[in-house]
């Protein structure tokens, strides 16, 4: 059986016995966060560090990916039995699209929802590691070199 079929079977068989609510949400989050951390750690060890690595390895993205699990539950209910994300390959849209999405209102909200002010702070830290601040070492000569 393929992994996604496994998941579907699990959801189908086990769902009637699962009590949803805050404790269940927390348990799901903790488990998925731990699993994703391990996967991301393995991934980052396997590749050279670079911009994509920094984005994927950032705690912000891990948190957002964990958020995907909970929000996917919403999609499941909206879709009444739709798919679940197939593991860590389902990276958050804003990170996959562009690093700038790390600072979208949605992404920042997701970070806060998952880990409060500490997670928000961590996301800002990751943002600075990826995006800036901009270099100051531009001389006026360099600024004007293409003029004339």
């Amino acid at each position, binding site marked *: 059986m393929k992994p996604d079929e496994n998941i579907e079977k699990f959801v189908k068989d086990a769902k009637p016995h699962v009590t*949803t*609510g805050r404790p269940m949400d927390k348990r799901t989050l903790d488990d998925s966060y731990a699993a994703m951390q391990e996967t991301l750690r393995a991934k980052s060890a396997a590749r050279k560090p670079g911009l994509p690595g920094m984005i994927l390895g950032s705690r912000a993205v891990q948190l*957002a990916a964990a*958020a*995907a699990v909970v*929000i*996917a*539950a*919403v*999609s499941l*209910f*909206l*879709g*009444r039995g*739709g*798919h679940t*994300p*197939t593991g860590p390959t*389902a*990276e*958050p*849209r804003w990170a*996959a699209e562009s690093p*700038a*999405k790390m*600072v*979208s*209102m*949605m992404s*920042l*909200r*997701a970070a*806060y*929802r998952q880990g*409060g*002010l500490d997670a*928000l*702070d961590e*996301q*800002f*830290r990751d*943002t*600075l*590691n990826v*995006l*800036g*601040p*901009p*270099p*100051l*070492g531009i001389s006026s000569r360099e600024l004007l070199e293409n003029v004339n």
Partner: protein
Amino acid sequence: MKRLRSGTFARMGLASLMVALLASPVSAYPPDPDNAALLYYQGFLALAQLDEGARDRIANVAKGEAVPDDKVRADLSNCSGAIDFAEAAAQVPTCHWGVRYSQGFDALMPQLAQARFLTYVLIADAHIRAADGDYKGALERCLMTDTFAHHIGDDTFISYLVSLSVRKLTYGCMQDVIGQAAGDAELLQWLKNELVTIPGNDLSPVRPLKIEIEIVTDLMQMKNIGKLAMILANSDDENIIAEIVKKADAKTLEQARRLYSERMKGSLIAFSTPAVYEQAYSQLSKLTSDLDPNDPSAAAVRAFVPSLSRILTLKTRAEAHANAIKAAIEVLLSRAKTGRLPDALPSGLPKDALSGNDFEYQKTAEGFVLRCRGKDLDKDEIPQHEFKVKK
């Protein structure tokens, strides 16, 4: 001739006036920005390009987790341009960051990450000034950072949370510095007067709540189902997005909209009505606790309603912290007069915002503690503020 002479004099007078006006250095310059955000943005551009280690060193000093060493001093010396811009910005009352509300949740707010780091720079600088014995300089930095928190504002929930977070760091530093400056009554009196004049806690979650209601109710419509599905799916998986789009219908979204508006308007009332923290907390908790995750519309609402009771707690704790600083200044002023810490808290001091009562005052070996009488209901803990008094 007389007429001619008076006409000539008039022309000469007018010419002199024009020359004087044109020669005036003040009128020769265009005015500086009247929007503080423009100055902060320039400050962000002027922040030194520090590596991650340097940024962490600065953050650790700002958080009071490390004492300033030579490395941090060198790192901060590269940030003087940014600090200059922040100083200028603090003098400008108006601050508009230019958030693109039309983009809804896709609006980018890169300035907040930079603002967070600038806060660390300012507070680390305050700690360095205090370590060098320049307590007034350190407190001036703290007051400037408090203005910065005010400028960060309440455009969105995230801005509001960041401003609370900046305030927390500022008050923590002030708490540390006033203990060190406990013997300087004149300085304490100056700070007391300054705290009366600064903008105070007039930021509130009401404005961002109203903006979120607009964004979310607009989003929960069939015309925006693609965008809504993307947010709910929170992934690139086209299948999930397509599935949500396929299964969603106008009726479910209409129910979700109605439920969301009802809950969020309830929260607006709770945040706008003066109430004891515990009572408001209970009201806000009820607004989200009964949302059934198995009901499609309620599940969608759960995805968008922020953690209202936690926001209330953070707001109330910030107020309690500000009041603790003001109360501590009075305690230290009393000490400056009598030569010893009072045995009981002087009357008429700002209250603990969590309970609405006076702080519990306790003298310790190192100084004193102002303890809240109400609990942080999220963390189930009683916050306390310790003031270590320099002998």
